[in-house]
């Protein structure tokens, strides 16, 4: 839902980042307003996942230039846990298995950390169980998964559902979902996308990172951005995703080559 007067939740300006000695992000610009759903598409290696990890504060990535402002606050100076507590959520492409840590306890500790930041009272075990059982419905998840270790032995689809369950509990204002559709069969995709749709509202924003149009059949984006070589190359509406699906990414390479030729002379702002 595009409302030009909606408050800006996340503002990314000329973001550059590297992992080890390799520059990956080379000037990303992106603005997310409340109520909007954005999709970032691009080939492997275009920097999509790096963008998500940089926003969440992964220690392996170093920001070398640019800024990220979340509701007026400098996001980049915050620890990962603080970013999560104030409402930035990263849905992992490969959710991490943590043997020995109970999923239920993990969800409760995480939910209470977010609640404390919001000035809400801590939920005890019983109150939390009530809440989590209610939220399980969002992703049609079996309560048996609560008693297992975090993501341990979960199938690909179960892991992604567990990510969306966490999102349902933490109620973020900005949700970045990194290839949430990867490894999902049609049914699981429908359930996960249904969960994302249920959680999207006029007060929050969603950033979907994906390779494929099929996720966007289930979740309609307001904006589609095409990323290549660490930059957003083009921005359009949902029809841009369809165009990509039909034409493939080859034209992106051509545009990129043209852009890089012109970049030799001056930086180009791509809208």
């Amino acid at each position, binding site marked *: 839902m595009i409302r030009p007067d909606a408050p800006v939740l996340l503002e990314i300006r000329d973001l550059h980042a590297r992992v080890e000695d390799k520059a990956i992000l080379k000037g990303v610009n992106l603005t997310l307003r409340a109520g909007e759903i954005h999709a970032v598409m691009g080939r492997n290696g275009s920097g999509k996942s790096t963008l998500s990890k940089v926003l969440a504060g992964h*220690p392996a990535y170093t920001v070398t230039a640019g800024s990220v402002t979340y509701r007026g606050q400098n996001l980049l100076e915050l*620890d990962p846990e603080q970013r999560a507590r104030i409402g930035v959520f990263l849905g992992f492409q490969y959710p991490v298995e*943590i043997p020995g*840590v109970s999923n239920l306890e993990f969800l409760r500790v*995480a939910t209470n950390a977010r609640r404390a930041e919001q000035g809400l009272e801590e939920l005890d075990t019983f109150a939390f169980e009530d809440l989590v059982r209610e939220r399980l419905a969002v992703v049609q998840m079996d309560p048996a998964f609560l008693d297992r270790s975090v993501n341990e032995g979960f199938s690909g689809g179960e892991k992604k559902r567990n990510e969306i369950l966490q999102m349902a509990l933490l109620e973020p204002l900005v949700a970045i979902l990194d290839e949430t559709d990867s490894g999902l069969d049609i049914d699981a995709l429908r359930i996960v996308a249904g969960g994302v749709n249920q959680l999207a509202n006029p007060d929050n924003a969603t950033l979907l990172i994906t390779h494929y149009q099929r996720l966007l059949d289930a979740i309609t984006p307001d904006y589609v951005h095409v990323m290549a070589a660490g930059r957003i190359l083009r921005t359009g509406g949902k029809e841009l995703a369809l165009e990509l699906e039909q034409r493939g990414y080859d034209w992106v390479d051509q545009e990129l080559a043209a852009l890089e030729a012109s970049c030799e002379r001056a930086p180009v702002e791509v809208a």
Partner: protein
Amino acid sequence: MTATAAPTAGLPAWMERLLSQLPPAQGPLAAVQERGRVALAALPVPSRRQEEWRFTDLSLLTALAADGLETDLLEDPAARPDLPPAAAGAVRLVLDGRRDPLAGVSLPPGLSALAPTELAQALGHTLAATGCEHHWPVELNHAAASQVLALRVASRHSVTLELVSAAGTGLLPLRLLLILEEKAQLEISQSLSAASAGLSSLVLEAHLGRGARLHHGLVALGRSEAALLAHLALEQEPESAASLVVASAGWGLARVEPRIRQVDGTARTTLRGLQLVDGRQIADTHSHVLFSGPEGELDQLHKAVASGCGRSVFNGAVRVPREAQRTNAAQLSRSLLLSDRARIDSKPELEIVADDVKCAHGATVSSLQTDELFYLQSRGIGSEQAAGLLKRAFCEEVLRELPPAARAWCSFDRLLAASGAAEVSG
């Protein structure tokens, strides 16, 4: 070469003093005591010049009990306010090294004390079978122990035991002999704690008859000025299953030696170990498993968490001689190194002569996994709390295999408190 001022120089003198202060040999073990004292006088105190003790400095012992090596007798040893009451159906015995642990106790059906003649016949048999003769910690126990808890579990009976001990200052010698008849089942939860600077010496022998089942959980929570020397020797007849789970934390010095022999193969052995070190603590597990017949199984997992300037040692010997064809053994050592001043030495020692066997082994030493930490942090969990959750998870893999009573005694929080708090508590 003359022994000059090595760190262990005080140990022989300490040993002499200990021998001179032991009370006269008496009780059911008098003859064993006499033999132990003779042996100990002739045995050199282990030093780091010996391969078996290369990483384990015993010099802490010399600081123990300067004013005598007599164990304090606790007024009411049954009153362990830190432990919940015995579980329903379980027999709790208090071992204080001096009093008869069975005095005034009525044993459940299937459990009986060994008669003196049986004791004389059986005592030491498993120690010899598992190659523990002339081991210094064993001879030390022999020299000092005047009491033995010697029990027999009758065929096809199932018994649950709780054994509790609290070491004061001085030397606490604990000697146990367990005989499990054919298809007998025994579950033991054993708690050993240290209240002050002292040496706890534990020697356990268990003989598992055909088809017998033993599940033994030892929870040993010490303190930085206390030491623990433990030998846990098991002899297994075919089709028996032994599961030995040891969790230790907080000892200035702990040396635990599980010694297993499958006398005719086709038995199953499960070994689990968890040791936490912090401060300047040393924890050393030397396990030894010998398959003296075919088709034996071993499943071993040893874990260590080393913080501060702590030192963790694991040496896992597995012997598969020619007669042990089709042995299936797996050993894994996993260690968390949480400080750049801590040290971990882990060594698998597989000696395989039989040619048709599966023997897997692995060892990992790592700090906490960055990806796991980041995942927890990305959900709002602070880095310290996240590290705590991961440490807990690492330890739970072993703790959850303790028998229920021992499990209740040894929460991760208690283990952690014993590991670190011993440095500051008075």
